[in-house]
């Protein structure tokens, strides 16, 4: 533990506009960005766990197709009825779980956690603002998110169950399944998109308008830049999906044919539709959102990583300007790479060539960011705290995820790898040991600011090492399975294509490839158990963790640490004035190895 820094504890502040004991206005209908951030955080963590549990049940079905699920099987059977008869997972239910795992993880867990929770709590603090620019819009944004989440959650229990056509909801399949799950999905998405839109407008306006005096653009912490670019991605990429969602809803409810081609047959009969629609149109509109969405998932994580690296290496980030310009380039380029998800749709080779080129281009700023972060470690006095461990692991994990994406971005190699477990392994490396590790790091790092108490370091390290090992045990074998030709989205885990089932088939899945399912299942279960120390540590530390003895326990430079702990409504006791850049660590000639952005220090004139 470093020596106690000289920052004093501020006395608790109760501003006059916040009445004590008004539970509803303080915790439920709050307009305080910090409370809204925590609401987002708790709701998103719940959905993260829920999405994970869906996945573990699916892994059981993949490893042991058709056998009753242990422990939760009877519960599933009693709640969901025939579709989970005798505690087994029917193919329809498997499809539902698959579609909803993706939807929940992307739209209800990671984005709300990375953008809604961390962004809401930290962006106003880091730019020295008293709150968001539009506090009531901020509250509405959270409420729309909750409504969208409830609609998605409830759809499991309607007749026919939740949406079954994947998180991508490709028509005509999505529209041909004769249940209402897809309609619920679409209505839920409209609420979630509205929520993101309100949040994005608010974030961008806040960063533009509410920066404290002296907080110039190039003095913004990289985390704020990352959130700023993310805000633009959400603002401009989501509306086309909203348009597509409205059109699919029209197809479902008003029987239009936006995405239904002429002559479509469903179940051996000509569909009762006017025809003339285009399934490709949906894919274009969907991926126009969903590729920028990938960067919505990763940019805030990179922001968290940058903050924690600078703080724990005790030196400035290497290449701050390169990081900023790379983030801006990623933001721009992410709008013109979407069709690399569609090489095999028959959209044409010249279009493929264009999107291959832009896809290769966008890897450049991503590599610059990762390189800057690696070089930042060089020569640092690294403190191996729990958040720093997660961040150090983020770098190679994100590297694996990124590099394995290149073969998918080239249309030739994509022919072999498309729609296999290789793809699943690739993007989970980005999001699971990538983004989620950064989010864990952020939780451990900012926990003392939010609660005034530290999380337990030992159990944090247990959580880290177990998560790191089991994440890799889960996703590494999937690369091999995918390259061996195992398709994703199969309710039987590929048993119908195995050599055991059809020995005479050429290229059937070997026993070795099929056997990996069992290892992955138990690694997934172990990963779940590895989260128990985190969950217990999290809740236990809120009330019983070691109290921090100052407002700036990590000796950080950015403004969120120059507030009382926890920050009151209105944030700062005196309006901050920013005097320097965000990462002034180990400045030669200074007494301490960190100089906060707002601190008035005597000018250093000459070296001793």
């Amino acid at each position, binding site marked *: 533990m470093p020596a106690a820094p000289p920052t004093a504890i501020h006395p608790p502040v109760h*501003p006059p*506009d916040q009445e004590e004991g008004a539970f509803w206005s303080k915790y439920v209908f709050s307009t305080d960005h910090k409370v809204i951030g925590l609401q987002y955080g708790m709701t998103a963590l719940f959905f993260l766990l829920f999405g994970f549990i869906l996945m573990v049940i699916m892994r059981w079905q993949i490893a042991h197709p058709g056998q009753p699920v242990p422990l939760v099987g009877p519960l599933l059977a009693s709640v969901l009825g025939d579709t989970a008869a005798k505690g087994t997972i029917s193919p329809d239910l498997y499809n539902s779980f698959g579609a909803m795992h993706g939807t929940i993880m992307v739209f209800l867990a990671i984005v709300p956690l990375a953008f809604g929770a961390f962004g809401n709590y930290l962006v106003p603090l880091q730019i020295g*603002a*008293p*709150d968001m*620019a*539009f*506090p009531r*819009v901020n509250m509405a944004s959270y409420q729309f998110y909750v409504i969208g989440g409830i609609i998605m959650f409830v759809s499991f229990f309607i007749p026919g169950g939740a949406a079954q056509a994947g998180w991508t909801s490709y028509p005509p399949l999505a529209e041909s399944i004769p249940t209402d799950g897809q309609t619920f999905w679409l209505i839920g998405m409209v609420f979630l998109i509205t929520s993101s*839109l309100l949040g*994005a*407008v*608010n974030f*961008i*306006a806040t960063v*533009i*308008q*509410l920066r404290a005096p002296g907080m110039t653009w190039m003095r913004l912490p990289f985390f704020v830049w990352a959130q700023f670019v993310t805000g633009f991605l959400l*603002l*401009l*990429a*989501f*509306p*086309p999906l*909203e*348009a*597509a969602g*409205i*059109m699919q809803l*029209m197809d479902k409810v*008003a*029987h*239009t*044919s*936006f995405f239904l081609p*002429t002559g479509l047959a469903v179940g051996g009969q000509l569909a009762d*539709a*006017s*025809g*003339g*629609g*285009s399934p*490709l*149109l949906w894919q*274009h*509109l969907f991926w*126009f959102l969903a590729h920028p969405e990938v960067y919505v998932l990763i940019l805030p994580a990179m922001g968290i990583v940058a903050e924690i690296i600078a703080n724990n290496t005790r030196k400035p980030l290497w290449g701050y300007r390169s990081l900023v310009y790379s983030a801006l380039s990623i933001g721009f380029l992410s709008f013109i790479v979407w069709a690399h998800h569609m090489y095999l749709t028959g959209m044409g080779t010249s279009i493929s060539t264009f999107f291959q080129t832009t896809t290769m281009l966008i890897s450049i700023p991503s590599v610059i960011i990762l390189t800057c972060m690696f070089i930042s470690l060089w020569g640092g006095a690294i403190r191996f705290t729990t958040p720093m461990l997660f961040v150090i692991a983020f770098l190679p994990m994100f590297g694996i995820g990124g590099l394995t994406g290149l073969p998918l971005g080239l249309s030739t190699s994509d022919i072999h790898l498309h729609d296999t477990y290789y793809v699943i392994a690739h993007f989970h490396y980005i999001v699971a040991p990538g983004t989620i590790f950064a989010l864990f790091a952020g939780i451990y790092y900012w926990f003392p600011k939010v609660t005034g108490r530290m999380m337990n370091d030992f159990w944090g390290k247990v959580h880290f090492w177990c998560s790191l090992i089991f994440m890799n045990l889960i996703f590494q074998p999937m690369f091999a399975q995918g390259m061996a030709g195992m398709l994703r989205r199969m309710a039987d885990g590929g048993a119908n294509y195995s050599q055991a089932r059809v020995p005479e088939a050429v290229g059937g899945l070997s026993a070795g490839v099929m056997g990996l399912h069992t290892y992955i299942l138990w690694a997934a279960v172990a990963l779940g158990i590895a989260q128990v120390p985190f969950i217990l540590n999290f809740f236990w530390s809120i009330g019983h963790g070691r109290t921090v003895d100052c407002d700036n326990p990590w000796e950080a430079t950015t403004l969120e640490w120059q507030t009382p702990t926890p920050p009151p*409504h*209105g944030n700062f006791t005196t309006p901050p004035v920013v005097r320097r850049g965000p990462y002034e660590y180990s400045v030669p000639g200074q007494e301490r190895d960190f100089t906060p952005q707002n601190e008035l220090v005597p000018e250093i004139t000459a070296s001793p």
Partner: protein
Amino acid sequence: MDIPYTVAIRPDTGLYNAKVGIWLFLASEVMLFGALFSAYILLRVGAQDDFWPHGWLNIPLGTLNTLVLITSSITTVLAWASCKMNQFGRFKVFHACTLILAATFVGIKSYEYHDKFTHYEITLNDGRIADGHLLESKPDRVVIRGRFVADRKDLFDLRAPTASHKHEEITLPRADIKRMESYGPWHHTYLAIYFTLTGLHALHVIGGAIVIGFLWGPGSRLWRRDPERFTNRVEISGLFWHFVDMVWIFLFPVLYLI
């Protein structure tokens, strides 16, 4: 706790918060309608030859509605200028005009919708197609004002020199009817995109009118307490209103003329 720049202008950006917010919101609206216009292009390019409709909409009515909306934009600017010039009475008059014009627009649009929902294409058992507006629907017969066509293609280009515009009263026994479908969004992808685009636009008109109506009615009390803030609100809602008008300026030629 006061949030800075809610009313005053931030010196380095030259804007107050809500103005940044509305421009960002309008940027996202551009993407929303842009996606739907792209959908229109893709559907039209991919449509079968001779089966994309021309002349299905009433151009004089569309032109009238365009003029109505443009006029409402002018009254909106004048309402804002009146606030700036400290003439609250004139503000009330101009925004009353805006609200009347908005109601007129929605009224004309409803009439056009009604016209489509009462327009039927009826396929008879002998292969002929009767097309026209429903006059009477009885259990044993259907009466329309319209015409017969032999080839379905003839229904699509009403602007062609050969197109027949002779409409007469036709009585069809129910027993002869094979299929009967109104010109709703389910009838053709052109109508699907027409109803989606104009419906979404109409929702924007109604939403904008509600906000302007609030500022005209109960919300105008703010004028006495904080005229500057009230004027800002009028400006923000006006920006939205101009955007909604501009969407129509694109919708009108795309759907009615070309």
